[in-house]
């Protein structure tokens, strides 16, 4: 039974890279360009097993997205990882307060990405 991942990033390159890695690892991937896009997509779509989101995005940023998702019944306990840059230490705290499960620090490689996801993904 394959798992479904939601990837939220305004950078198409980042989306492609994360999506490529996860697809190769057997995930079904749903991509969204920003928070609002993500909220719209999950409102109609399937249940997600994991969410990976960027923080700095237009329309709706990652922190707001995490807060929004946590309000939804289907996302109450879903692991949500945020992509963050090293310099954004305070962002980690904000993310945690919003309900982020964990974080992946950019730059990362496919191995770190998969390892971190494995860490939080319910089996």
């Amino acid at each position, binding site marked *: 039974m394959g798992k479904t991942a939601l990837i939220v990033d305004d*950078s198409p*390159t980042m989306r*492609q890279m994360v999506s490529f890695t996860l697809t190769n690892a057997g995930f079904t991937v749903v991509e969204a360009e920003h928070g609002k896009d993500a909220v719209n997509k999950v409102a109609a779509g399937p249940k997600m097993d994991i969410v990976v989101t960027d923080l*700095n995005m237009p329309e709706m940023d990652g922190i707001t997205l995490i807060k929004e998702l946590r309000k939804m019944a289907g996302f109450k306990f879903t692991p949500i990882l945020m*992509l963050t*840059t090293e*310099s954004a230490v305070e962002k980690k705290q904000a993310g945690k307060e919003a309900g982020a*499960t964990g974080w992946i620090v950019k*730059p990362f490689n496919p191995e770190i990405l998969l390892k971190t996801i494995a860490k*939080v993904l319910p089996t």
Partner: protein
Amino acid sequence: MSNDFAQFQDAFFEEAAEHLAVVEEGLLELERHPEDLDLLNKVFRSAHSIKGTAGMFGFNAVAQFTHKMETLLDLLRNGQKAVTPSIADLLLKSTDCLKTLIESVKTGAAVDEETVQRLTMDLASASAADSQPSGTSEKKKDGAPVPGRGITRTYSICWTPPDWLFQRGLDPLQIMKELRCLGNLTKVSLDVSRLPHLADIDPEQCYFSWELQLITEKDRQVIDSVFEFVREDSELSIELIETTSEPPTASISAIPTVESDGPKPIGQILVESGVVSTGVLDQALAQQKRVGEILVEQKAVTPQQLEQALQKQRQQESTAQAKKTDTASIRVDTAKIDKLINLVGELVITQSMLSDLGTRFEMNQLHVLLERVAQLERNTREIQERVMSIRMLPIGTAFSRFPRLVRDLSAKTGKKIQLVLSGEETELDKTVIESIGDPLTHLIRNSADHGLEPPEERLDNNKPELGTIRLNAFHEGGSICITVEDDGRGLNRTKILSKAVKQRLISENEKLTDEQIWSLIFKPGFSTADKITDVSGRGVGMDVVKRNLEALGGTVSIKTAPGKGTTFTLKLPLTLAIIEGMTVRIGRETYIVPLLSILESIQPTREAVKTVVGKGELINVRGTFLSMVRLYDVFNLQPEHTDPAKSILLILETEGERVAVMVDEILGQQQVVIKSMEQNFRKVEGIAGATILGDGTVGFILDVRGLLEIARREIAMAA
């Protein structure tokens, strides 16, 4: 490992180019609206994106430089610093520099290190000047901890997670599982003492604590990292209670972790087994030589041969890189593709229904057949439209570089210039957009340099000091029009004429219409500039503009009024592939008229046609006289009718001019795929291209503009 992402480099370059455009555009806009927070956020986000993604590919120079820009931008958007002209200028220069840095990783082109250094310093000092330096330190994370092989340690771990653990999607069992992967979890005891009375339990809270004992080869850092996401919010103690050098037997069954795949280097094994010390190994490694050097020493190759081989290697590396960047790509909204896939699905269904019908067709099912064929037609048309729309982009992407250009031109020429953009959302084919940038740049340069007057001259002529260049795009018929309009001095008729005579482009007493005079400026080598300036005036450009446009199947025309200004109108096909056409018949020939140029079709009365000496044949359409072109005459065909009263007149319009074209019959309307006549033949006057008709034969598409010219010439000859 990070090389796995290398295949996405092209995507990054494409994306970076877009972000750079956003940054540049935003910065220019900020000069005018320094308080616009949305704008600042947008610029910041783009810079941030470049930084983050560049880092993913190990483009550290790009990432570091962008980080400096980002730091300053962050201060601006937090209001800790204000957008001053000098800061905007610095950021713009930095954007240019960032462009070259990105270009450099893309193509291997050299970077002006000095500029990078200087701007890096300027950015840093601008960020530091009157506020605390960005508190975010850039400390690098330590490398992965080296596992102490062969030594096992026993840890005692006590963990009390925060009670909101579940609400962040964290699962304590996951942590147990991860610990188990590290070694042998010999003791797991659950402390439930904090569990409240059943009635008071909130099922979404975590009331547990754990006491664990782990025997592992890994050191403390690795265990620590298991708790990475909860450490700061938990009560956690990890204590080393025992160290042994025996490998724990239990760990054999443990799932191997990701630390090492493949054999270790021999040096590492020697060090680990205690045969040599790290120092000795390092020394030995320092003596290690490259294959090339060893071969030279053994006189197997000469240093020259080696140098050549190395050069070749470098070349191959750089060409490999260059090749990779050469591919053109287009980014498409996934929604567009999803829709397309749905449509293809429908097409497949229609097709299978049709073949099903075909295998056991009877005449009484004719209506079903027709219905399905109609459905097929609908599917095909929709797919075609969708596919075409994939190539359509808003022209704004081509416009975005001009605010900067005008800003720089303004500085260079000392003229005050504002650029007004409109119609940026107008969509047209990607290829056309890519090719239109250079001609437009030439025209804008020309307007700034030749068109607009210096401020003093403008004031003397009761004009506002600030000159205006307007860039506008709009659809007209099947084409897109782009106008470059300035409110400058207009083209100087006498100056152009005398210059043209001097350059022997025309003879002295030649009679030319205004339009012919204006078109002289598109002749190669023509320039009326009194002195050659840095901006334009070398006489290159305007002829190139015309050539580029013609290559795209477009035209350029000029309207000018002395003292009021000049407007260049570029007319380009919307797409290079398909048009909506009206098929018409003249005798036995079929021609296609672009539907968008047809205003109406009429059957004239005999009285409506007038012959006027010097003006040819005119037709009275509700009081307006239009010149009439008999298509059979122009194309030397055998018509069915020579009497206009028995024929059909199509009223066509192009670039605001109208003409009545006489044909025998209108056959119908259809989409036609434009095929080039120039590919294997040459341009034929009055014909824009060819297409393949339903019966497989070739039909010609009328060139309305060309017809107008033919009509005009014939009138001139008759007069």
